[in-house]
């Protein structure tokens, strides 16, 4: 069975507001969803700043053949029957961290409060908290078909060339109509 979904960074780099802004609201509201407190270290999605101006949200890819599952010596990670994604059984997890080293994306982490492994669980299947809160709308929970559609679009943009896209729409959006221009005049 294919995974139900995974969180994809659906950025639109040819738009100024189509890139992760680095606001980290996803981290804050992910931790609230799971722990009722704000703590980025306990978030299952993490925003990594590569350098000034380049922030990338990173979370579990819900691999069909997960390295974390294979690394676990306590059978604490298993594929969920409903969502077909790897989930951690907190009762079985010993906090040995083997899965942390095994995950190629570094996105299964240790909860500093419970000392158990934590990873994205898609918030149980509804709209994930990170997707709901993202002001730039660059996070989406996509099934494999949706991911293919997005990848196709991204590939097309690559073929078109970012320069071309920027030239047509400077700064990303439609040219500013006179009406909006007047709105700028407000303080």
């Amino acid at each position, binding site marked *: 069975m294919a995974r139900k979904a995974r969180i994809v960074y659906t950025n639109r780099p040819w738009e*100024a*507001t189509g*890139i992760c*802004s*680095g*606001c*980290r*609201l996803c981290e*804050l*509201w992910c931790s*609230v969803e799971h*722990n*009722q*407190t*704000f*703590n980025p*270290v306990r978030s299952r999605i993490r925003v990594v700043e590569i350098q*000034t*101006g380049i*922030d990338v949200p990173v979370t579990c890819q819900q691999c069909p053949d997960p390295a974390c599952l294979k690394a676990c010596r306590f059978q604490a990670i298993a594929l969920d029957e409903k969502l077909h994604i790897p989930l951690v059984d907190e009762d079985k997890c010993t906090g040995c961290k083997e899965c942390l080293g095994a995950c190629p994306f570094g996105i299964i982490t240790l909860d*500093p*409060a419970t000392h158990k492994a934590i990873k994205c669980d898609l918030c149980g299947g509804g709209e994930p908290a990170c997707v709901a*809160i993202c*002001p*730039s709308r660059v996070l989406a929970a996509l099934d494999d078909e949706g991911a293919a559609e997005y990848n196709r679009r991204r590939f097309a943009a690559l073929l078109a060339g970012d320069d071309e896209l920027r030239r047509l729409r*400077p*700064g990303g*959006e439609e040219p*500013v109509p006179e009406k*909006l*221009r007047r*709105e*700028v*005049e*407000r*303080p």
Partner: protein
Amino acid sequence: MSGTCYAGKMLRVDLSSGRIESEEFGTALTDLHLGGRGVSSKVLYDEVPPEVEPFDPDNRLIFSPGALHGTGVPAASRTTVATRSPLTGMHGDGHAGATWGGELKRAGYDLLIVQGRAEKPVYLYLDDQTAELKSAAAYWGRLTSQTHQALARDLNRPELCTVTIGPAGENLVRLAGVFHNGADKGVSARCGMGAVMGSKNLKAIATRGRGEVGAADLPALRSAYQDYLETIALDPYCPPATKYGTCRFMMHRVKFGIHGAENWRYGAYDWSRLDPEVFRGDFQVKAGACVACPIRCRRDYRIASGPFAGITAKVEWETIARSMTCGIKEPEAVIAWANLCNHYGLDVEGLGDTVAFAMECFEKGILTKKETDGLELRFGRVEALLELSRRIALREGDLAGILAEGTKRAAQKIGQGSEKLAIQVKGGEMTAGDPRGMPVRAVSYATSTRGGDHLRSNPYIEEIMTPEEALEWWGSEEAADIAKGLKGKGRMLKFSEDLVTIGDILGLCKFAYYRSATFPYLYRKGVHLATRFYNACSGRNLSEEEMLLAGERAWNIEKAYNTRCGADRSDDTIPERFFSEPLLGGGPSGGAVVEREKFDRILDEYYEDRRFDPETGLPTRAGLTRLGLKDIADDLEKRGRLAG
């Protein structure tokens, strides 16, 4: 149970003795002062009497994250750093939007007080509950960005949060700021914070926290969040903020013709290449955001070609405005200058005015090439601006050493009538737009508790209010008239000061909460939603009136602090230039001056509404006790600084 937005502890670090003490924070301070600027102002009043000079070891450096900072409340990103300012000699604070304050809370502290002076350069390392002072020998002399990166690497903490000073702070340049997470994230810029940190031999505070910041009532928080999103979707102020960032304010300055270019002489000025469209189209990296902000008006700009190719810098509107004060007309120069200031640890606002002052001195022949070491210090000369800024940061040469003291002290030193060219209020350089043609704005610069400043109040209310609203709120329709109105303006100014102080107390960004296209939206965001957010996160039940009162209380403490330092009504004024020299360059406000009579009448009404004595400008016992500040009234009386 998910706790509250308070961590519950405070940390006191004595650099002289090396003692680090964690104390229970309790509710003694937060009950009345909530957090952020409210708490820091009170601590500064209580712990730094006027006998303690800014660079004395006994001066405090107070780090106080806004009450809501660290939570997921939209745009709750701000941290206050307060101290007795070496620039004004009075109350000083600076505010920055970044992640460091939230990290301090997650390390377990609502407040960090640094006192004393280390013998050798040190930095403070906070890793959750462990706190230690370490040698900063390897970092002293390095730029803000280098220090941040080196600390993260040396401590093996790639996600480390820091506050640092650059070379400017180390060299006690009174225009130095405290920089959050390197050069381009945020800076507590005003009032010379960085110099005080340098005087304590404290290079940085490196912080990692893995604890919790909670919210007492999550459903209430979620519902307020939804209402906030709806409000910003409807408020016409917000979409251009996301689209252009703060460089959008250019259109406001153009509309009123109040650029203050060439050391506050020209109202209209050539802005064609500083158009928000140019910044957006040619230089913008993306719509960036401070932590937790859905508005996303933070901007990094990158220069792709030309002599400055490859430079990236965070640029806010004030950097552009102060560049114009120095006669700069090219966006490349603005970005390069911002880059330089951010790395050397300088406050662009204070520095821009100071360089502009020196440029006018040069044009008038008060300074010559002999003093400037061969520098052709004319308005609009990019190399002169960059080179002098670098020299000031390093105090390289006699002139740079004099200018590093800030405009007011530099003018006193240089003399020869240059005092008239120093555009400062109480020693703090002026910011934002020219007040000529806008009387209430002129008064707002004068009454600001940290020297000339536009973020201390929001007199822009007059531009968005209808006459009917003005009548209802300030008792006079004419308060909505920008140029001619008088009656009600003092009351409006007082309200706007209390209003924006709420933002500094709670850690809410002023652009996200305290600027709007209409007054109802402004009140809804700035008072109604701010109060709901605070109640949901703290578990308290403050009314909107009590929230405004908290803002008023912080303001009165700062006023009392300045009064105790010797300030009175004569200090609540603006530079003579604005009264007597008509605005040049034509345009909508061309030829305007601030009329002294109008200025005084608004100030009278303001004092009356503030319950200060209009004769002397001193606080009254009745006014202070009404706010629960009897202890401060007693202290002022003892020192003979209470009215009547």
